[in-house]
Every structure is written in structure tokens, then in C-alpha cells.
């Protein structure tokens, strides 16, 4: 029983961390209609930007997160406008392939300057909190709180601001949105900034738990995709639900299978979901 409860808690915590980049990915997918593989490098760039702010400049973690958001978002917009936006007319698959190439370029720029070494954030060490037999790390709890606040801010933005409403309008029906005078190019830029920025913040939150290297983003890419597909590709609330479901599924499966197969759990979960309910938990039609 304790084992299950502990797995459930751990699952919710890792799920909440995956949810942040998954929301970023889904926002870009919802508006621009292509799966952006470059989010892996945006997550890595965010993680390194926060590392630089935290270790080199000595800033605490919250300003470091803001810097990570701004830098990852800016890199995302510049990369999108220079390497991807002109390919949109050639179909989603071509943009997706270009985003894989873009990811390779950005990941290796990081590798060129920082090398393959693992780096850790400068954080105070804290003892795990115990509740009876259950253990919770204060660092994880802080990351969880940050993830919740960031996602609440994102949902408030989408719901209450003009830009947020315009983004949802474009996602829902681009032609109708244009008729209403919404400029799709501007919405695209704002969306990519937000999406890449969130992904960058997600990279930091995931790195806080362990360490970072140029492959930090690539390692979470499959989990992010799995979360987005489980929740329903293109649905932002779906990405959150999918990420939490994935986190719990991973932790429960790890009771039975070795930890090295964590990524495989997401893959199997996608296959099962696509076989029985392709639209995902909260998604639109998938055919």
C-alpha cells in the first residue's frame, strides 16, 4: 500500500514537471499544426541559461527561471522565423523534418560551447521530508509548486488576455480567426515565444532534480510527446492531464520493470492509447 501511494506521489511530481514542456509543445502544435521536434533543444537551452544565471551569476532559482524563459523563448522565435516559418506552405511533415534538423543544430551549438559534461545547479541540500513511511524531497516539492504556478499563469493568460483568446481562436479555426482581424503571423510569433519559453522552463525544472547536459532536452522529448498524445494532440489541458497520467503510469510500471525502461513505458502507453482511443483523453479527432 505504501509502495503504491509512494509511486502515486512520485508519479504526480514527475508528471507535473513533464507537463510544463508538454504544454509548450501543445501550444505550438495547436496554433501552427506541426509537431516541433526542436523543443528538445529549447528545453536544453533553457536549462543551460538557468545554469548560467544560477551558477555563474549566482542568482536564486526564480530569477534564473525567468531568464531561462526569456532566452529559450527568444531562441525559439528566431529559430522559427529563420528556419521553419517559410516551410509552412509545404505541409506539416516538411516543417517537422526541418525542426529535427534545427534541433540537431541547436543541440550541437550547446555542445560546442559547453561540452558533454554534466552540470548541476547550485542548490542547498535538504533532507527528505517523511510522512509516516512516505518520503518527499523538498526540492521536488518546490519544483512541483513552481510547475503549478507556471501552468496556472499560462491558463490565466489563455483565458483572460486578448492574446490568449486570439491564440485559442486561431487554434480553433484559423480562417474564422483571420476574418475577425486576427493576424496569424503575430499570433504565431507569440505562441512560439510562449511555447519555447515554457519548454525552456520545463528543462530547468527537470534539471533541478538531477543534472544537465546537451541531451537533457532530447531525453524528455519522448515523454513530452507521450504526454501530448495521451492527453490528445493539440489540447493544452490535455497535455497537463496526459503528463500526469504518464508520470503515474511510469512510476507504477517501474514497480514491475527495471528503471532503464522508463522511456519505453511512455511508448507502450501511446500505442495502447492510439489503438483504443486515438484522440487521447481530451483531444480532437485524430484521423
Amino acid at each position, binding site marked *: 500500500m505504501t509502495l503504491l501511494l509512494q509511486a502515486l506521489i512520485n508519479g504526480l511530481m514527475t508528471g507535473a514537471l513533464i507537463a510544463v514542456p508538454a504544454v509548450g509543445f501543445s501550444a505550438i502544435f495547436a496554433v501552427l499544426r506541426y509537431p516541433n521536434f526542436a523543443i528538445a533543444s529549447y528545453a536544453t537551452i533553457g536549462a543551460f541559461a538557468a545554469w548560467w544565471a544560477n551558477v555563474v551569476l549566482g542568482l536564486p532559482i526564480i530569477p534564473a527561471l525567468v531568464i531561462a524563459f526569456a532566452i529559450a523563448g527568444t531562441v525559439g522565435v528566431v529559430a522559427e522565423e529563420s528556419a521553419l516559418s517559410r516551410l509552412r506552405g509545404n505541409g506539416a511533415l516538411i516543417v517537422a523534418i526541418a525542426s529535427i534538423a534545427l534541433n540537431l543544430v541547436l543541440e550541437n551549438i550547446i555542445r560546442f560551447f559547453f561540452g558533454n559534461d554534466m552540470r548541476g545547479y547550485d542548490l542547498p541540500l535538504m533532507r527528505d521530508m517523511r510522512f509516516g513511511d512516505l518520503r518527499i524531497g523538498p526540492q521536488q516539492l518546490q519544483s512541483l509548486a513552481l510547475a503549478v504556478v507556471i501552468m496556472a499563469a499560462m491558463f490565466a493568460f489563455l483565458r483572460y488576455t486578448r492574446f490568449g483568446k486570439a491564440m485559442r481562436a486561431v487554434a480553433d479555426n484559423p480562417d474564422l480567426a483571420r476574418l475577425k482581424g486576427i493576424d496569424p503571423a503575430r499570433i504565431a510569433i507569440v505562441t512560439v515565444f510562449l511555447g519555447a519559453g515554457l519548454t525552456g522552463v520545463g528543462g530547468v525544472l527537470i534539471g533541478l532534480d538531477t543534472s544537465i547536459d546537451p541531451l537533457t532536452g532530447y531525453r524528455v522529448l519522448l515523454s513530452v510527446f507521450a504526454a501530448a498524445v495521451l492527453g490528445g494532440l493539440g489540447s493544452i489541458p490535455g497535455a497537463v492531464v496526459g503528463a500526469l497520467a504518464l508520470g503515474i503510469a511510469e512510476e507504477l510500471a517501474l514497480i514491475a520493470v527495471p528503471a*532503464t525502461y522508463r522511456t519505453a513505458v511512455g511508448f507502450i502507453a501511446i500505442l495502447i492509447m492510439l489503438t483504443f482511443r486515438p484522440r487521447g483523453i481530451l483531444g480532437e479527432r485524430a484521423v
Partner: protein
Amino acid sequence: MVSYVIFTLTLCGIYALLALSLNLIWGGVGLVNLGLAGFFAVGAYASALATGAGAPVLIGWTAALAVGAVVGLVVTFATLRLRDDYLAIVTLGFAEVIRLVALNERWLTKGSDGISGIKAPLKAELGLMGFNLFYLGLVTLIVAGIWLLLRRLDGSPYGRAMKAIREDQQLAAFAGKTVLRFKLQAFALSAAIAALAGALYAHFQSYVSPDHFQPLITIYIFLAVTAGGVGRPSGAVVGAYLVVIFLEATRFATEWVPGLQPVQVAALREILVGLALILVLHLRPQGLLPECIPRAPKPVPSKA
């Protein structure tokens, strides 16, 4: 130097097979397989294990073809009915899972140590140089054979139906084409070719390990097919040779840049590969040898 050229040309042939595999599915029915490296690995391990258990090399290669096709069907069965983006995501995940299995199931794959001592056909009889030349000839012959076959396929009614599906699924379905069946068959055949490439690679190197099947290979093959021309088997083959030459050229070019660490040299080469793919997509998306789409036949004047 001669053995370097022979080695590179053999690698060209193996990449050409992978490019033909990708072109069949991408240029054919318009789907992408981001798990090419995974199918490549499946074929390599299937043949290595089969011949390791005592089977002759030809049986090993046949096993690779069969296992590749079956795995391809199992993985994509649920996904082929859905939008194309799902297939992209699932195949990417597949390649990663294959790598994890190869790394962790030590009883089967010897983990990161890899399988060594894979049978090299006729190596004892021909000597090292003779074997390398023989193998280069064999691989080139297989590439030529599959290239011819796929060219024939492109011109056949089957190939035309595939391209109709690529252009407009609904219209093809309306014209009575069984879209899902075509996709399944094309994917299975494409996966089998990639697996055969893996088997050829394994017996050439006599050694396979999970490190040989990095996702990077998939990107190389995408570069090959886009640079050569999507939808044309000749383009895929030419593209594969060009990509290997390009990769080797970046190796020499980056060595000339002074004062770089080895990790920076490696990073620089990968940056060049990524930039090349982005540039080709922007500047010449139809590739060097664009697909030739035959003119529709003139309507036969009806006799009054």
C-alpha cells in the same frame, strides 16, 4: 587509402538501401519513418543472432527481412489509420525503445559490449582485401537490384495507386483504392529493406552495438532523400552517396580548424549536417533529381 575508399563505398551502399527504404514510404504513400535507425538495428541484431546460433548468412539476411517487416507492422498497425504526425511520433519512440532493449537485455544482445565475431561470408577464403572488395560488389549489386525493383514499382499500377494515396487519400479511397492496405504493405516492405541494410552492415563490420544505431543515422538518411529528390529511387541512391561523401568531407574540413577539442569537432560536423538539411528544404525541396510525374494520357477521341 584503397581500403578506406572501399569501406566508404560499402557504407554508401548501405545508406543507399536505407534511403530507398525511406523513399518508398515517404515518396510512395507520403508517410515518414523517424525510426529508421531502429529498423536498421532490428535487422542487424536479427541477422547477427540468427547466424550466431548457427544459421548460414543467407538465412540470417532472410530472417532480418522477415523480422523487419513484422516489427514494422506490429509497431505501426494502430497508427497508420491516424494522421501522419502520429506515425512520426510513434516511429521515433520505437527507435528509442529498440536502443533501450539492445542496451539492457544483456542475455540477448550483450548490452553495450555489443555482439562481436559476426560471420563475415567467405572472409577466410578471400582474405581481408578480397573480402572487402567482394562485399562492396555484393552490397552494390543488392542496391542495384532493389533500385531496379522499386523503379519498376513506381511505374506499375501499384506504384501509381501509392502516389495517388500520397497526394489525396480521400480521393484515392473514393477511386476504390484500399488506402490502409497500401500503407501497411508499403510500410512493411520499407521496414524490411531498412532491416536488410542493417543485416548487411552487421556482417560487414562483424560487430554491432547499440552505439551504431544512433538517431543521427535517421537524420543522415532524411538529408540523403531530400537532397536526392523525394519520390524517385534514383534520387535516393544518388543522395545517399552524396551524403556519405559530404560527411567524410566535413570530417576533413573540421580537422583543419585549429584549436578545437574533439567534442567541438564532432559538434561542428553535426551542425553542418543539420544546416545542410535545412538549406536543402528551403532552396531545393524537390532535390537534385526531382520526381518525374508522367503526363496524363491524352483522352482517346471517341468514335462518332
